[in-house]
């Protein structure tokens, strides 16, 4: 049965982590295939010809691409267990809005904080702290973004916890000092096996990102 589901994966991709978490939450068995992004497999190029990117979920031979689209697909196909999106359309819209916020703000701005230098980095750092505070505001007193249950927005955001060490080191600031509730939320998520088993060590990610940064700077 497990060869019915293949995940084209990359260990440090926050987007791939989202899919790993969703599959784990649902208790789905699958085969993870680690891609060498400098030498992409013919399977990846065949299954995602448009973007040639991971993650790609291959279910019964058919590809699903784009991390949040994959997570929604998983939620819809395996709907009987651990729902990730709430049932009411308004709450679903809210969950989608915040997941989109992560993609539009946390990801690109975070990249600049660990990847850029000088003024660009400084401006990004300010914007990132602001965005994290907005997220904290949305979280409020709830244990998770959806409320009482771990859900879609949590899945969208928690992989970026693996960037915290890199962001703090490169940006020279403390996330816990600025957003203590957000850090508490992250640690709460990490207590879930689906999350802790899907996220790599922050320092490993830092070393990887710094290698990437060197490559870009060399170009």
């Amino acid at each position, binding site marked *: 049965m497990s060869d019915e589901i293949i995940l084209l994966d990359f260990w440090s991709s926050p987007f791939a982590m989202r899919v790993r978490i969703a599959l784990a939450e649902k208790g789905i068995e699958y085969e993870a295939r680690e891609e060498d992004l400098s030498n992409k497999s013919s399977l990846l190029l065949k299954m995602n010809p448009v973007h040639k990117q991971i993650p790609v979920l291959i279910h019964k031979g058919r590809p699903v691409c784009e991390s949040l689209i994959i997570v929604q697909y998983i939620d819809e196909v395996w709907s009987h267990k651990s729902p990730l999106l709430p049932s009411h359309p308004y709450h679903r819209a809210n969950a989608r*809005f915040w997941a989109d916020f992560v993609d539009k703000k946390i990801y690109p701005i975070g990249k600049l904080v660990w990847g850029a230098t000088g003024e660009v980095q400084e401006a990004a750092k300010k914007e990132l702290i602001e965005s994290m505070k907005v997220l904290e505001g949305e979280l409020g007193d709830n244990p998770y973004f959806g409320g009482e249950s771990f859900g879609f927005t949590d899945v969208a955001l928690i992989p970026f916890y693996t960037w915290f060490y890199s962001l703090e080191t490169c940006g020279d600031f403390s996330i816990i000092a600025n957003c203590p509730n957000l850090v508490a939320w992250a640690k709460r998520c990490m207590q879930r096996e689906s999350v802790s088993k899907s996220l790599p060590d922050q320092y490993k990610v830092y070393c990887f990102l710094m290698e990437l940064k060197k490559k870009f700077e060399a170009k």
Partner: protein
Amino acid sequence: MGEEVKVFGYWASPYSYRAELALKLKGVSYEYINEDIFGNKSDLLLKYNPIHKKVPVLLHNGKPIVESLVILEYIEETWKQNPYLPQDPYDKATARFWIKFIDEKCFPTLWLAAWSPENEREKVTNEACEYLKTLESALNGKKFFGGETIGMVDIVASSVGYFIRVTQEIMGLNLLSADKFPQLFQWSEDFANCSIVKESLPPRDKLLPFVKGLIAKYQQDNAKA
């Protein structure tokens, strides 16, 4: 029913248009409020969309929903008649893939091709053409992206099929042409000719001068930067 449905939009915004077309396809009555997005945004808009401060905003029984794609999903889930997303999860995922592609790659690059400075235009135009080619492949011989009738992908693709075509006219560009992309061109004709679309699109004679002004503004701002 006593439902209160309002759309805060801008008459020339392709994003705002998506929300309106979706409601019209569902036969849902709504009150439209045109926002002065280039001048003074209303207090209500800033109250309902404090994070992005943009149109469109859908207000349903006093609750705001923002971001055009989130709004489209909400409308689909709330009003079940005339569905515009497939039921099957795989087909739904495929539709969502193309929607994201149009929104993040196709449309922004085509818009960029319209106002880019001369020295950058060729590169952006080539990229835009590649995206159009890919988008055309998604049609795959169908009349609409949704099949026989308009689906969510078509609603989103209106940004390309109508708004970009108008933009191209102004700039004398011929990217989305019948000879380069026959299927996609035909789709844009069929789409614009649907009665529900025809009666809701912002009129060309109003849109043309508006887009012209907008392009001039972008070029000016870019030259200053």
